[in-house]
């Protein structure tokens, strides 16, 4: 990795000329964004869209925490509360985290492998423009008779067969989001396999490209499975089938098997791109090459493969045969091995480096620390007899927010601060970003750490009201949640300032330890880059 030399044919000065050449072929205003096939435009749209969805899903989280601030029903009725937890989950997973990862891929993969654009530029446009209608379906479903889906983001029947037409909106939204993800993945795989610059062998690719390549394969493997599951749900609801109804020879648990066959790889779909981002940031700010590059690639592949054989650990309390319990427990525990390898490699990268702690590095370290904590609770949950006490409690809620919020989201914040100089040409405000980091870190822990205690003490998840012995931790968690929510406005402000060019102008390579190809083009990256591929030695 450290031996890449960049010999990009169009000199830095030539880029501006290129930019002007192409600019007048393109429509401006809204049509530019509707018709664009440029990976940078599309990446930008993905990122803004996902942040908008993050705010929508976050608002729902605020409603949830407001209701749970004290025992008793105060703000919303139980059915609406269930809609909030359901939509919060769906919107955060499918609307915020996944599109954000695709946004990073769109911007960075062509720049990092020396490609001029994504392989299927028009399909790229279509993948993005499928998202807003899907998001609208989810939001509109709140206002249809019977309300939005309220069966949890996992959509378990028969409860979801009972509910009103909001559920159908949700099913169609999931179909559309799945189609978008599949197209995005095909695009990413083709781009990585076919458009690498001469000399950029697979084992020389930046790790971010590797983790996304593997993620894309996971997506292609499991999104159709989810589509199948929700389609069966749809036909059970409206066309008289009984896939999930015992009275007609079906089985409600079948849905859970199919759903989690999608759902567990989905967890890695969410985290692997984050691993990739962190694997770029830590070497850059340690001024030292990534330790164990090859073993990082193998560990990522190992995690991906294992993710297909652990799904039933989400179903330990459904009543499985002993052999099934043991198999899924052992397989789940095994995931700790490749994950551990990754953590050790990151630490070895930092070891004896020359570290500085700008915002991207802070978020990467925050990620490392808290993601690992979430990994440990995951290991505890994998032990089936222990899981029996924790399944469907706040312990699980704490666990997956540690890996998704402090894991993926923190890595994405780190990535955004790391690359925003390249994207916008403007440096972000470092002090504000540090405040954002520390405020998020502290409030995150105030919110989610007490949830471990709630789960252990016996509070089930997805309940709008609770017994009195849970009151104190809930109040603390709610205070933390409002603080965390407010902290994210700092990020929004920082990014808007960069987008408007308010701030210091960014040099081509603002981070002296960063050595990947994107830092060889000027900041902001010209509209078209690497039209003549760079030579990678």
């Amino acid at each position: 990795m450290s031996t890449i030399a960049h010999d990009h044919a169009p000199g830095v000065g030539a880029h501006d000329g290129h930019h002007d050449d192409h600019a007048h072929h393109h429509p401006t205003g809204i049509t530019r964004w509707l018709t664009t096939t440029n990976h940078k435009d599309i990446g930008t749209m993905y990122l803004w869209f996902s942040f908008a969805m993050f705010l929508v899903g976050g608002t729902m989280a605020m409603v949830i925490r407001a209701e749970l601030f004290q025992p008793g029903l105060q703000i919303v009725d139980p059915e609406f509360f269930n809609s909030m937890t359901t939509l919060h989950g769906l919107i955060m997973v499918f609307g915020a985290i996944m599109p954000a990862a695709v946004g990073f891929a769109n911007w960075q993969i062509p720049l990092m492998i020396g490609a001029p654009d994504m392989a299927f530029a028009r399909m790229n446009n279509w993948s993005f423009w499928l998202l807003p209608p899907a998001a609208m379906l989810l939001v509109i479903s709140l206002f249809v008779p019977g309300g939005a889906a309220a069966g949890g983001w996992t959509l378990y029947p028969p409860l979801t067969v009972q509910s009103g037409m909001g559920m159908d909106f949700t099913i169609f939204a999931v179909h559309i989001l799945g189609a978008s993800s599949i197209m995005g993945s095909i695009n990413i795989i083709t781009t990585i396999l076919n458009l690498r610059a001469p000399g950029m062998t697979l084992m020389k690719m930046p790790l971010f490209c590797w983790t996304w390549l593997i993620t894309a394969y996971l997506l292609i493997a499991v999104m159709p499975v989810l589509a199948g599951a929700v389609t069966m749900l749809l036909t059970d609801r409206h066309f008289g089938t009984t896939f999930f109804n015992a009275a007609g020879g079906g089985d409600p648990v079948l849905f859970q098997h199919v759903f989690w066959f999608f759902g567990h790889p989905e967890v890695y779909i969410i985290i692997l791109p984050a691993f990739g981002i962190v694997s770029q940031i830590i070497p850059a700010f340690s001024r030292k090459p990534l330790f164990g590059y090859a073993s990082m690639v193998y560990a990522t592949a190992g995690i991906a493969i294992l993710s297909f054989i652990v799904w039933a650990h989400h179903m330990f309390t459904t009543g499985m045969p002993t052999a099934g319990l043991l198999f899924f427990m052992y397989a789940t525990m095994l995931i700790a091995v490749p994950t551990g390898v990754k953590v050790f490699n990151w630490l070895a990268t930092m070891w004896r480096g020359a570290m500085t702690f700008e915002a991207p590095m802070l978020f990467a370290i925050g990620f490392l620390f808290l993601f690992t904590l979430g990994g440990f609770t995951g290991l505890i949950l994998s032990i089936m007899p222990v899981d029996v006490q924790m399944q469907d409690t706040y312990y699980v809620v704490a666990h997956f927010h540690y890996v998704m919020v402090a894991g993926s989201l923190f890595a994405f914040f780190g990535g955004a601060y790391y690359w925003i100089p390249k994207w916008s040409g403007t440096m972000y405000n470092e002090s504000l970003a540090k405040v954002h980091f520390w405020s998020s870190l502290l409030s995150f822990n105030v919110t989610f750490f007490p949830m471990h205690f709630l789960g252990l003490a016996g509070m089930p998840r997805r309940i709008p009201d609770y017994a009195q012995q849970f009151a104190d931790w809930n109040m603390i968690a709610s205070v933390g949640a409002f603080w965390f929510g407010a902290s994210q406005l700092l990020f929004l402000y920082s990014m808007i300032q960069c987008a408007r060019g308010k701030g210091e102008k960014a040099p081509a390579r603002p981070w002296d330890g960063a050595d990947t190809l994107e830092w060889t083009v000027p900041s902001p990256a010209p509209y078209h880059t690497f039209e003549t591929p760079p030579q990678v030695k």
Partner: protein
Amino acid sequence: MTFPPFIARPRLLPASLAMAFAVLVSPAALAIPDWNLQTPVTPIARQMADLHLYIFWICVAIFVAVFGVMFYSLYKHRKSREHKAAHFHENTIVEIVWTVIPFLILLFMAFPATKTILAMKDTTAPGLTIKVTGNQWSWGYDYLQEGVSYLSNLSTPVAQIENRSPKGEHYLLEVDNPLVVPVDTKVRVLLTASDVIHAWWVPALGVKQDAIPGFVRDTWFRAEKIGVYRGQCAELCGKGHGFMPIVVEVKSKEDFAKWVGEHKAKTQVAGGDPNKVWELKDLVVTGERVYAANCAACHQPNGKGVPGSYPALDGSKLVRGPKAAQIQIVLHGKPGTAMPPWSQLSDVDLASVITYTRNGLGNKTGEAVQPAEILAARK
């Protein structure tokens, strides 16, 4: 279960905030709210708790070791201390070591866990078998050999939930009819559900098992201590999910036998002489209680239902029409909807609640439904 004394205090917002802050900054200064697994009272629950602690401490040890290294590095290897970056980036031996060691640690976790799983799955030779049925939103208990069966509903008054009266000690964790079991007896629990998936969870007993409509699953527990243990439904089952607690009363074997006898007698009185003709107003009084326990969650206390989800009874054609059709639906449920069959209720309860809906909730048919009619309709 006992709660720390400050729990029962009326909670005013500023006071609570101050306390939240106090707990946050100095957990030792006040009694710490519940933060660990409830005290186990069965061998399995104890194994679960021990296993949790064992693995927890292994994790803590690894965490401290790994992040000790990280924080040392963060402190020592920083540019501001003019540390020069080394350039190593590969070491096969190290990679092998940190792959193999975690694997070995996992073996030490898997071994005791496997033993517990094998014990948990052994449901043979029970001393008592109870069938538990999850309903939206109550639990049905059937003692298969003893022939006792009843429904168990949340008994917390709505006024407490809606903050109109102070919350009791067992707010949301109290029921009208708890499950009663003898101490030191292997109780096998057969689980199913009538509508959607529920999960029967009592932390102190170490039991959590999904109740799946159309299927029967089993689990077991052997309570070693007389007492009252509380749990909740642990699988999202609709809007009443947070309001279907489980209370298990563990009695001495003699008290249990006495309870079975009393309960049978009581059921016979309540199930009563089906030929007795009841007064309309008596039926309405009993019916109101049955309605509040079983029907109000969906059809609402005022009978107005929830548009789009649960039909109104107030003004309903079915309720104001001929009795027979309504009796059929209440007894057998309405397939494809959330309306379950209610045949497990006694004839008197059913006759009362139907009479109540026909003469309360804005309806006034003036007709009484007698237990005998229910009995006839059951056949």
